[in-house]
């Protein structure tokens, strides 16, 4: 568990607002970003296919004398999709493309200031050598029928070098991020959930815990308990209730697992919060 916490801490970066509050942003990991990028690629490809279809229908519908305006529109549309899609969305208010938005991440400036348009442009133009250049080398070669193994391997190595670049630095930066002074952080939308200790449960009222029983656990365990209670899975609740019951010397009935845990959570939190108020933060059960 210590390693898990250290791994979580490794991607946390402090972001101190002018008001002096540290907002603690979490960097998006490589897998999340790859997923967002793939989503965007799917959107772009779909749009490109749609534009091409419309253009083709236009040609057959209007006849070939209207070929030229359609050709212009098609070329400009494809150009926009390739170059402007990322820039336009990331320069917007939410600083994220549709793919990023779905995944819940956004682009932010590394120095904490507002993200400017030139930063967005810089990070996205570099995508040209990260993704499109190796792809077009391979595509171009195979189009000419001279795609030998060597060029393919070279293209792949190049692509991998850049694609895996975020894995080799602490801040998970792409080359484009590095140049633009940006990084990608998690910005999930959360809803306010109910306060578990305010839960009214008639059965829970029957449970009373002593000082010693509440001293058995610390904040880390409290948060785990909160997770279990929010997930509300019957078997997990029962297993956790049994473990806690054994530890504090109290054995609730099997069907009482949920009210028992609710009661214990409420009392434990009040107990630890009171300690917190008095200046003692009990991180986990090992701390005395």
């Amino acid at each position, binding site marked *: 568990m210590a390693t898990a916490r250290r791994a979580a801490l490794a991607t946390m970066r402090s*972001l101190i*607002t*002018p*008001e002096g*509050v540290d*907002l603690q942003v979490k960097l998006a990991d490589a897998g999340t970003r790859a997923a967002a990028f793939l989503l965007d690629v799917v959107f772009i490809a779909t749009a490109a296919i749609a534009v091409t279809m419309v253009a083709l229908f236009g040609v057959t519908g209007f006849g070939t004398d209207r070929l*030229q305006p359609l*050709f*212009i529109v098609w*070329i*400009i549309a*494809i*150009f926009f999709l390739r*170059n402007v899609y990322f820039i336009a969305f990331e320069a917007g*208010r939410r*600083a994220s493309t549709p793919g990023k938005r779905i995944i819940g991440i*956004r682009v*932010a400036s*590394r120095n904490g*200031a*507002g*993200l*400017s348009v*030139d*930063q967005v*442009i*810089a*990070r996205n*133009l*570099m995508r*040209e*050598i990260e993704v499109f*250049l190796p792809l077009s080398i391979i595509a171009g070669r195979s189009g000419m029928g001279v795609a030998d193994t060597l060029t393919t391997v070279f293209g792949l190595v190049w692509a991998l070098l850049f694609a895996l670049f975020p894995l080799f630095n602490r801040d998970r930066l792409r080359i484009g991020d*590095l*140049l*633009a*002074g940006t990084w990608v952080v998690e*910005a*999930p939308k*959360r*809803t*306010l*959930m109910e306060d578990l*200790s*305010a839960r009214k449960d008639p059965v829970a009222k029957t449970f*009373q*815990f*002593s*000082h010693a029983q509440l001293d058995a656990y610390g904040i880390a365990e409290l*948060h785990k308990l*909160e997770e279990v209670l929010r997930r509300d899975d019957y078997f997990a609740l029962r297993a956790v209730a049994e473990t806690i019951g054994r530890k504090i010397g109290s054995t609730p009935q099997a069907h009482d697992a949920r009210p028992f845990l609710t009661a214990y959570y*409420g*009392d434990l*939190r*009040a107990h*630890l*919060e*009171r300690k*917190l*108020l008095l200046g003692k933060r009990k991180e986990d059960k090992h701390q005395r």
Partner: protein
Amino acid sequence: MTAPVPGDARRGDAVRQSLASFRREREADWKAFEALLARVEKRAPRTLSEEELLSLPLLYRSALSSLSVARATSLDSALIAYLESLSLRGYFYLYGARRGLRQRIADFFLHDWPDAIRDLWRETLVSVALMFVGIGAGAWLVASDKGWFDAIIPSGLAAGRGPDASAEMLRSMLYDGDNGFLSGFAAYLFTHNVQVAILAFALGFAFAVPTVLLMLFNGCMLGALFQVYWAKGLGMELGGWLAIHGTTELFAIALAGAAGMRIGTRIAFPGELTRMTAAAHAGRTAATAMVGVSVMLLFAGLLEGIGRQTITSDVTRYAIGTGMLALWIGYFYLFQVVRNGNR
């Protein structure tokens, strides 16, 4: 196990009560802030009433202070996570320092673009010089051995032009526009040139080496073509054919190369800054220059696709080409002086 202590439980209850009332009293503010944020993120801030607009920073500070209180006193991790995400959203929105779109476009053309180009003057000189070296080398190579022409210019691009082509054929290439496809051709040229420029910029990352090569090679192709026409006594005519759009296009590509070189050299020699900060600084200047470059290439594409095919007089071609070049240079390097004088 000791028996439950009634006094202890009551003291715990008091803490619980005060935290519950903290949440009860602040919750309305959080919800209001969340709703406002959701609206301004979707639509322009114009859609908010004045009152709502003024309440945004207040609600943001209230959320931040709630977060501080919650972190210090509450152990409800869901509540803290909610407040953190709410404050972060608010922070990004309020400190995003956004200018209006019209203001941003005006700033770009009045300040940012010429400033960025002026900032790159040293790299621009190098880039232009490299192109001339390339032209010289290309011409000299083809003059010494015709075989070089095929090596330098891909056969698809040469389209029959070459050392062995007749003077009439070469001449017809200069003056006969294939009129059917003009503006489509212009659009194609524009997108193609922008991709080349982006490449010249992006490759600068590798310590500027590929960009230097690209500039040299671009010059080489030009030099080779020039030599072929020069040998047939069509040098002046080719100059006109190239000048009408080439002054804009080649200047734009030189600027893209300069932007790439700036990034490469800053990464190699960051000076007093850390390598990362130096790269970030260079990246921002270069990116602004690159947007300008694509605007220039749009002009070049129009001139090449439409102007070159319809205007066949050498004098006019030269005049337009020189005029465009003077316009760009005046805009980039002299504009600042005029504006300062007016102040």
